[in-house]
C-alpha cells in the first residue's frame, strides 16, 4: 500500500515537473521578463490540442499508431519510479535501480519509431530510421557515463548512490561524466540540437508529422517528461539527489532538477540543429571514447580517494 502511495506521489511530482519543463522551455526563449506568458502558454496549448480532432492517416497501422503515445507515457511512468525524491520517497527501490532505469529507457525510442512507422508516410519512415540509428548511439555513452557514480558508490541502487554523495557530489570529480550524460540525454530525448528525427522542415515533423490533437499532446507530455526524468537521474548521479541543508528533501531534488534542466535548455540555445550523421559522429567518435576515459579516471580516483578500502 505504501509503495502504491509513494509511486503515485512520484508520478504526481513528475507531472508537475513536466509542466515546469514546458514553462522553462518558453522561459529560456523569451527571457525572465515574460514569466507570465511562459507560465500560461503550455496550459493554453494543451487546451487547444484537447479540443482538436485525433486524425489518423489513411493506411496507417491503427494499433501501433494509437498505442505509440501511450507506450511512451508508460515508459516515463515506469522509469520515474526509481527516482528518489526523498529519503523515503521513492516508488520502487530495487538493488539494481539504475540498471532497471537504463534498460527501461529503450522502449521510449521504440514508441517513437512505432509512431513514425505506423503513420505509413515517407517522412514518418525517415524519422523512424533516424530514431533507430540514435537508439544504440546514445545508450552506450549514457550507460558508461552512469558507471562512474556506480563505481564510486559501489552500488546500483539509486538511494545508495544519493547517500554516498553526502560528503562530496560526484560532479566535483566526475565533470566529464556529467557532460557525457547530459549530451546523451539530449540525444535520447530528441531535444535541440539533436531533434532531427522529430523536426526539420524537410521531414515536416518527422515521426510525429501525422499526430494531431490529444495524441500529439500525449507525445509532447511524454517528451518533456522523459527529459525531466533523465535530468532528475542526472541530479541523482552527480548532484547528490535530494540532499541539501535546510529545505525538505523533495524540494531540494526539485530545485536541483529544474536548475539543471534550465541550464541545459539555455546552453542548447547557442547551438544550431545538428544533422543526423553529425549526431552519430558525436556519439560514436567523441562521447564513447570520452566515456571510456571517464571510467578509467573515475576508477583511478576512486582507488585514490578511498585508498582501495572499498
Amino acid at each position, binding site marked *: 500500500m505504501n509503495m502504491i502511495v509513494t509511486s503515485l506521489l512520484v508520478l504526481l511530482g513528475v507531472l508537475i515537473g513536466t509542466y515546469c519543463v514546458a514553462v522553462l522551455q*518558453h522561459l529560456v*526563449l*523569451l527571457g525572465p*521578463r*515574460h514569466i*507570465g*506568458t*511562459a507560465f*500560461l*502558454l503550455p496550459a*493554453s*496549448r494543451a487546451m*487547444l490540442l484537447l*479540443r*482538436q*480532432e485525433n*486524425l489518423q492517416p489513411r493506411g496507417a497501422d491503427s494499433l501501433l499508431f494509437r498505442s505509440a503515445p501511450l507506450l511512451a507515457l508508460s515508459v516515463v511512468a515506469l522509469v520515474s519510479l526509481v527516482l528518489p525524491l526523498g529519503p523515503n520517497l521513492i516508488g520502487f527501490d530495487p538493488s539494481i535501480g539504475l540498471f532497471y532505469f537504463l534498460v527501461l529507457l529503450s522502449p521510449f525510442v521504440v514508441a517513437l519509431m512505432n509512431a513514425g512507422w505506423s503513420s505509413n508516410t*515517407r*517522412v514518418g*519512415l*525517415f524519422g523512424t*530510421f533516424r530514431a533507430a540509428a540514435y537508439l544504440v548511439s546514445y545508450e552506450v555513452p549514457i550507460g558508461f557515463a552512469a558507471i562512474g557514480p556506480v563505481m564510486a558508490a559501489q552500488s546500483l541502487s539509486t538511494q545508495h548512490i544519493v547517500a554516498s554523495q553526502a560528503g562530496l557530489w560526484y560532479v566535483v570529480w566526475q565533470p566529464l561524466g556529467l557532460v557525457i550524460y547530459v549530451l546523451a540525454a539530449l540525444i535520447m530525448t530528441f531535444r*535541440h*540540437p539533436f*531533434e*532531427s528525427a522529430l*523536426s*526539420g*522542415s*524537410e*521531414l*515536416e*515533423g518527422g515521426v*510525429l*508529422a*501525422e*499526430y*494531431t*490533437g490529444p495524441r*500529439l499532446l500525449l507525445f509532447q507530455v511524454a517528451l518533456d517528461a522523459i527529459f525531466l526524468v533523465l535530468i532528475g537521474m542526472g541530479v541523482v548521479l552527480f548532484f547528490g539527489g535530494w540532499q541539501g541543508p535546510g529545505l525538505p528533501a523533495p524540494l531540494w531534488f526539485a530545485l536541483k532538477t529544474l536548475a539543471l534542466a534550465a541550464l541545459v535548455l539555455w546552453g542548447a*540555445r*547557442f*547551438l*544550431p*540543429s*545538428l*544533422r*543526423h*550523421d*553529425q549526431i552519430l559522429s558525436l556519439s560514436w567518435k567523441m562521447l564513447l571514447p570520452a566515456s571510456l576515459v571517464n571510467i578509467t579516471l573515475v576508477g583511478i580516483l576512486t582507488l585514490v580517494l578511498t585508498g582501495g578500502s572499498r
Partner: protein
Amino acid sequence: MIGSAKAIRSTHAGWSARAKQHPCRYFALDGGSGAHLFAALAGRHPSVQQVASPRHADLLIIVEPVSRTLASAIVELARSLPHPARALLISTSGTELDHFTSTTQADVTTLLPGIQRTPLLSLESLLDILRDFGQWPELEGMASTEDESSLLSLPPQQELELATELVVLSLGPVQSFTTGPLRLLLICDGEPVLSAQIEAGYAQRDIARAMTQVNWQQGIALSRCLDPLAPIASQLAAVRALEQLQGWQPTTQTMRFREGALALERAQNMLWWVVHFLRLLAAPHLTDRSYQLATALAAWTSRIWQESPSAWIRAQQNVESTVASRSTAVQMQLQEIGDGVDLLSRTLERNRAIALRTRGIGVLARERLVAAGVSGPILAASEQGAGDVRDRLLTRLRAAVGDVREIIQLLSVGAAASPSPICEDAPAGKATAEARATAKGPRGTIGVHLVRSGEERLAQVEWQRPSAALLPLLPDMLAGQKLADAEVIVASLDLAMAEADG
C-alpha cells in the same frame, strides 16, 4: 508594413489579458510576397508560432497573391488541418496586379469557404487578429480542383522508383526554404539524395506580357510586382530602360538617391533572409540577434525617406534632396545597425557549430555560375570563397554591411551639401526603339529589355531574373547531398519564386 518602430518592442499585457490570449500555431503559405512578413511574424510573439507540418497547425495563413497553379495545394493543405480548421487570407488587394487576377490569380475565398480575410496593415494589427482566431468560423467543405491528383500523387516515373529501395520525397510546392512555392522531388537512397527534380511555375504571373498590355506609366507600376520583396530594383530597371527609350538622363542627385534606395532594399532583404536562414538552422540565439537587426533596419528605413521610393523613382523625374531625412539620429542608428550586422558577421565567421552545418555543402563553381548568367551574392561567394553555403551566408552579411554604410555616406554627403536641392538640367539624349537596363537587386542583377511599340506602348518586354538563372543548377547541386542538407542548400540560394517564375 514591418517597418513600424513598435514592431521591435514587446507588449506587456496583464495576467488577465494573457490568460485570454489563444496560442496559435500556423502553417504559412506564401504565394511569393510574404517571406518578410512570415520572418517577422515567426519571431514576434511567443504565442504565435510557425510549424513545419499542417497537422500541427491550428491555422493556415495565406499571403496573396496566389497563382492558379497553386490552388490544388491550398485545398490539400486546408484538408490536412485538424478540425477545428481555420484559415486567414492576408490580402494585398489594390495592387497593380489586380487587372490580371482573373487570368492568373486564384480566388482563395472561393477555394476555402469560411476563410477570414484581412488587409495587410501592420504586424501589430495582424497579431491582434490572430489572438482571436478561436472565435472565427471553421472552414467549410473545400472545393475540389481539376488538377488535384497531380499534387497528391507522384509522377509515374517516381512511383516506379518506389518499387525499388529508393524513396522519392516530394518537398513542396509549399515549403519554407524558398520565398514562394517550388516543388522538389528528391530521389533518396536512405539519407543521401541520388537525384533531384524541380517543378517551378507555381508563382507565375506573366508580368512581361501584362506590361505590354498597358501604357508606360502602368507598366512601371507593374514592374514593381516582378519581385515583390525587391520592388525598387525591378522598378528602377524598368525606369532606366524607359528613360533610355525616351532619351532622358537623370541628374546626379537623382541617381545618387536611387542607388541609396536600392542599397537599403538590398540590406533589408539580406537581413530578413539571414533571419529566415538561421531559423531554418534552428539556431535560436543567433536568430534573435539577426531578428533585432532586421526589425531595427525596417523601422529606421521608414524614417529615412520622407516620401516612399515608389513615389519618386519614376521615369523622367528628378529628385530633390528633400526625399531623404538628414537627421543625425537616423545616421547614428544606421551606423549602429551596420556595426551590429558587422559583429554578427564576425560571430558567424567564428562559430564552429554553424560552420559544421554549412561548410562544404552546396558548392557552386564560379565558372558554372558565370556560364549560367548568375550574379549577385551567389556569384560573389564563389569568387571570394569556396562558394559553399557558409560563404553565401557570410557574403550576404558583408554585403548588407556595405549597403548600410553606403546609405550612411549618401545621407552624410547630403547633409554636408547645400540645403538647396541640386537640380541639374537633364541632358537630352536620343530616343531609341529598344533599350536594356539593369539594377542591382538583393538576389543579383535584375535586367529588362524593352522594345517600343507606339507612343505610349511596349511591344516586347523581357526580364533578366536572377533567381530564374539559379533554378536549372538545383538538380546537380542537390545530387549527392544529404537529405538534411537539401533544404539548407536551397535556402542558401535565396530563391524568390515570384521573380523566378515571372
